[in-house]
């Protein structure tokens, strides 16, 4: 945390990005506390359907950004959608991190055949872009679990699909760091004191190889959020009956043709601001924690 604040000192771009992220998180997690869920009966009022934004003819002060086809206040609906998107993004990154991290640790520490097997698996997976893989995993989950799935099930499937699609990068990074660390003297010292392999891996090596991976995770958070939005937009991820940035844009896209642009373009804007902010922060952290670049700037 301290080094994170240090990384931001005197950097207006990354500071602004962090501020935007905090604002959006605040918006996403406080608005739902005192408003009715726009995707329940209480949250929509069909009489207000297609209310335009405040500054256009027929705008209402209660709905400054307008309402969608079901009369949902977009300002509220987007908070719910943003909350889903942020949670899906964060949890899927954590899943990818844990899965890739564990495989990378094992691969780098054990070596030999296990290492070869895991890394060849990674090679095969790298022949496909993560977005495509997430779609395929989603389809497999649908085939296994059946089609009549609930909203919660659909969200869980999306999270796991994105998590699995991104494990390779973490595994490769951790593996290469572990291969360097395992020959260090402190590992030999720990072994002499009689610690088990698991304890050495988790308690001694892991803390030393985490930093670069956490930076990759920040960058991947942006990609994971885009992936969720893309999947939901294409009708594969989160169903249209549940708010996420992607499903809101998908819903609004149907009315783009008839001129109700605000239903899809506001969520697009929020998505872009969130992703750009996360990317700016991620890029900055990568440069800051990369000693090769650090010396030059």
């Amino acid at each position, binding site marked *: 945390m301290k080094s994170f604040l240090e990384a931001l000192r005197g950097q207006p771009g990354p500071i602004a990005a962090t501020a935007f992220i905090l604002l959006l998180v605040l918006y996403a997690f406080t608005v739902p506390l005192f408003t009715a869920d726009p995707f329940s009966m209480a949250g929509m009022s069909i009489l207000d359907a297609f209310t335009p934004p405040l500054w256009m003819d027929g705008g209402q002060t209660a709905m400054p950004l307008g309402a969608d086809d079901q009369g949902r206040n977009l300002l509220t609906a987007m908070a719910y959608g943003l909350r889903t998107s942020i949670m899906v993004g964060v949890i899927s990154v954590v899943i990818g991190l844990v899965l890739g991290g564990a495989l990378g640790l094992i691969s780098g520490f054990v070596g030999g055949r296990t290492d070869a097997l895991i890394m*060849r698996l990674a*090679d*095969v997976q790298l*022949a*496909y*872009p*993560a*977005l*495509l893989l997430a*779609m*395929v995993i*989603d*389809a*497999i989950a*649908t*085939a*296994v679990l059946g*089609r009549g799935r609930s909203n919660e099930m659909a969200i869980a499937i999306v999270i796991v699909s994105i998590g699995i699609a991104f494990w390779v990068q973490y595994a490769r990074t951790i593996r290469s760091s572990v291969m360097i660390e395992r020959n260090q003297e402190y590992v030999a010292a720990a072994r002499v004191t009689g610690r088990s392999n698991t304890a050495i891996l988790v308690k001694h090596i892991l803390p030393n190889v985490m930093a670069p991976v956490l930076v990759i995770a920040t960058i991947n958070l942006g990609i994971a959020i*885009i992936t969720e*939005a*893309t999947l939901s*937009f*294409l*009708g*594969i991820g989160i169903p249209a009956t549940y708010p996420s940035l992607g499903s809101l*844009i998908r819903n609004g*896209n149907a009315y*783009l*043709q008839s*001129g109700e*642009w605000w239903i*899809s*373009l506001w969520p*697009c804007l929020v*998505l*872009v601001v969130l*992703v*750009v902010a996360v*990317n700016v922060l991620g890029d900055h952290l990568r440069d800051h924690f990369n000693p090769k670049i650090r010396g030059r700037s």
Partner: protein
Amino acid sequence: MISYTVGRILQTLLVLLVISFIAFLLVATLGDPLGLLLPPEASLADRQELIARLGLDQPLLARFLHFLGGMMQGDFGLSYRTQEGVGAMIAARLPATIELAFASLLVTLFVGVPLGILCGVRPNAAISRVVMLVSIAGITLPNFVVGVLLIAIFSVQLGWFPSFGRGQTVDLGGWTTGLLTLSGWQAVILPAITLAAFQVTFVIRMLRTQLLEVGQSEHIRFARARGLSERRVWFSYAMRNALLPTITMLALQLGNVIAFSVVTEGVFAWPGLGSLFLQSVQSADIPVIAIYLIFVGAVFMIINLIVELSYPLLDPRLRRGRA
């Protein structure tokens, strides 16, 4: 050189074999082909007959060999969703995707390359700065958002281009083309720009970085010292060195382009391979997904192989080094 080439080809074939096996496992273990292919009133005899016809009573390895053999003869299995042959479905959708990819390649070549050269040769000019600023949008905007924005502006507000479909197509003996009609050209423009947005940005940034680097190098300074014209220095000396890494990086991005083509086809309801894949994912049509994965993997790896094996043709130093 020859042993290296053969080695790389064998390696590619091996990975393709692994991919085919994984794809086969998907088909073999997921879903219930009998329940989906048989009508509900089918008799036990019908059932037995289908089991034998699909080879479901064989051991797994034999079924895999049968699967591979079938693919060699153009039998790619049956779709659960439409019960058509997967091969025929893919063949019917392929022209639309190839034409979209071709159109977006044209956009990349005629927009990305000139702008990249401009930004590399004149990095401090105002117009280069504007191009670099706008190119950030190409990297950060999600692909489908680019499509939605283009539709909002150019087909809803301005009404210049259609927002979905291929327009009027002409059938040229199995190959349906939209490039012979005016409406076909109008229809391809927005999807092509959407698909190219990423590549254009990528080419601009790569060419700029490469040209800036090459521009500093000894042989360029020497060429200038010999009194060659600026035009000659940049186009026949610097470009030669800058193109190779750009082409390599672009080829490595092919996987992303394939994924983006799925998204683009989804946004514009473009009736190509990508929409076929989307429909298959939505309905969990595993046989189509499996064949699509093999197809995409094969295209991706063959293009990578061609790029890698053609280095010596582009770069004489590699020819001498390995001979």
